[in-house]
């Protein structure tokens, strides 16, 4: 599989955008500027970009509590994302959702989700809708090793397989459900191996290798569009930060520092960058140009969020029902 130069650079740029967005979010959170909970995607950028780069504009994704990366990969406006994180009126959800609930139905983002595993049947339902409407989109559900241990994983994947729905189940296995390592609570080491229980194909890939992920996703998307049903893709990855911003030094209470350092050496962005440089697709000066451009975008997003108004408190009562609440 050969990707066009433009496509590769676009993927690289998206990974950098995710990283820089998250670094800024962490900074703003620590400064006490952003309210609420933030779960950073730093270290896992290859998964969102690798998967979403195999999708079309009209395809759907259903995201998780660690969802900023998925949204950026699918093409979300980072100004509206940042404004939402600030709790501003101009945010994606007018300040009603926050970090864990960003959605943009117009570009197929069915929503980040604060309940682990809960998006599995929602993506399945989007795939059912696609099949019933006779269209050819696909839907993707992202979840982690934690989500794979929820009961809904079983219900959701079984049904998608039974009905041969065009959906791709992507386990971004970062190995820790908050503080609990997968090996302590899961009987098998590859979540992907569960695919055989549902009679569907699996791919188990290096979650730090965006091209390997893209390849696995492309295969799964083709399979789905051909009406053959779902695929379970497991990406072995690692989060470079704690479960949430504010966890601080506690993250080292449950994972060894050496392990963290080992994984950081496998940074998905550095890896992809050196591959692109080796192939003469990227140069150091172009990388710098991209970096500067994205710094500018992030700055602009922060400025937009800061200058935006908070919603009027009364707006808390809007948007419950279509056509307004009756009571």
């Amino acid at each position, binding site marked *: 599989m050969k990707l066009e130069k433009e496509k590769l650079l676009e993927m690289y740029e998206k990974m950098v955008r995710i990283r820089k967005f998250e670094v800024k979010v962490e900074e703003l959170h620590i400064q006490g500027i952003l309210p609420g909970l933030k779960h950073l995607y730093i270290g896992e950028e290859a998964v969102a970009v690798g998967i979403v780069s195999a999708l079309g504009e009209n395809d759907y994704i259903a995201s998780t509590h660690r969802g900023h990366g998925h949204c950026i990969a699918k093409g979300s406006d980072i100004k509206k994302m940042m404004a939402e994180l600030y709790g501003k009126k101009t945010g*994606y959800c007018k300040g009603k959702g926050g970090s864990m609930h960003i959605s943009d139905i117009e570009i197929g983002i*069915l929503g980040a*989700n604060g309940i682990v595993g*809960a998006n599995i049947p929602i993506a399945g339902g989007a795939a059912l809708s696609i099949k019933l409407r006779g269209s050819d989109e696909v839907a993707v559900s992202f979840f982690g090793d934690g989500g794979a241990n929820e009961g809904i994983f079983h*219900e959701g994947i079984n049904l998608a397989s039974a009905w041969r729905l065009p959906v791709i189940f992507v386990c971004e296995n970062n190995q820790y459900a908050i503080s609990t390592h997968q090996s302590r609570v899961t009987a098998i080491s590859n979540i992907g191996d569960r695919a055989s229980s549902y009679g569907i194909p699996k791919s188990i890939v290096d979650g730090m290798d965006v091209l390997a992920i893209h390849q696995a996703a492309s295969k799964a998307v083709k399979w789905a569009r051909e009406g053959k049903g779902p695929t379970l893709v497991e990406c072995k990855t690692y989060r470079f930060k704690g479960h949430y911003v504010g966890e601080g030094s506690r993250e080292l209470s449950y994972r060894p520092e050496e392990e963290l350092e080992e994984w950081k050496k496998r940074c998905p962005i550095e890896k992809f960058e050196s591959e692109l440089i080796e192939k003469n697709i990227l140069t150091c000066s172009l990388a710098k140009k991209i970096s500067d451009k994205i710094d500018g975008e992030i700055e602009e997003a922060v400025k937009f969020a800061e200058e935006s108004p908070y919603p009027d408190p009364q707006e808390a009562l809007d948007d419950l029902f279509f056509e307004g609440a009756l009571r």
Partner: protein
Amino acid sequence: MRELTYAEAAVEVIGEEMEKDGTIFYMGEDVGRFGGVYGTTKGLWERFGEDRVKDTPLSEAAIIGYALGAAITGMRPIAEMMFADLLCLAMDQIVNQVAKMRYMSGGKIKVPLLIRVPLGGLRRAAAQHSQHLESWFVHTPGLKIIAPSSPYDVKGLLKTAIEENNPVISFEHIMLYQTKGEVPEENYALPMGQAEVKREGRDVTVITYSLMVHRCLSAAGKLSKEGIDVEVIDLKSLFPLDIETVIASVKKTNKVAIVHQASLTGGVGAEIGMRIVEAAFDYLDSPVKRIGSLDVPVPFSPPLEDFVVPTEEKIAAEIKKMVRR
């Protein structure tokens, strides 16, 4: 006018709506060829086929989650839970997902989803197949809740529920499915949030819904022979709640009882009673009375269940006490 059973009236309107709108489909356990355990979908599978009347695995959370995913991507699903008790298996999807999806999106996502829920005791089905859990969902902002009590009402309210662009849960008492009543052949809609005064009276207002409407009407009939004039209000929908009709009646009779089959503590009656106290305290001549099932799981043995659930006699006796105090 012709008579239909409650189950037939429901199937009739669903069939009519599915005929008109190709985006409506139905999913649930045994709703296809089998026609629903209580005939909730009888004949629909034959008419609309496998794609639009779908038998699901025993996966309640997936049923609701899939219906939600389809609802926000262009379809208008009707999902069925075989019993209200099974809602417990789908609580995350209903409470955390369905009810909040639109709000969390800042009003950008529409959720046209109807969840039909057969429920109710008095079938000697014991504690896990008899519960009335409606108050949990009334307590969850983002859901509309209906509980039709007659074939006429179920046809009209389901039409509105199917046309709603919001999630609606329809609680349908299993003991009502085979009851008959007059149902016009033409298509008609009944608005949600409009109660009906089923019987006018001067002495006391009885507010109720679902199967208990019939028990309250029988009790009122008996009491009228003793010179007690009871007004019976069928709420029909629990959210939105037609509090205006309730308050107007209380202002007229100055006495009020709320009757439901759900267990008493934390039931819908507590909410309605409090709303009356807030809005019409000065009009009350006696304390607001609640009559519900006793606060135990529904027992199996007939004398036990009949002791726990409000009977016509118990309702009549309580009303008599209020009027003669």
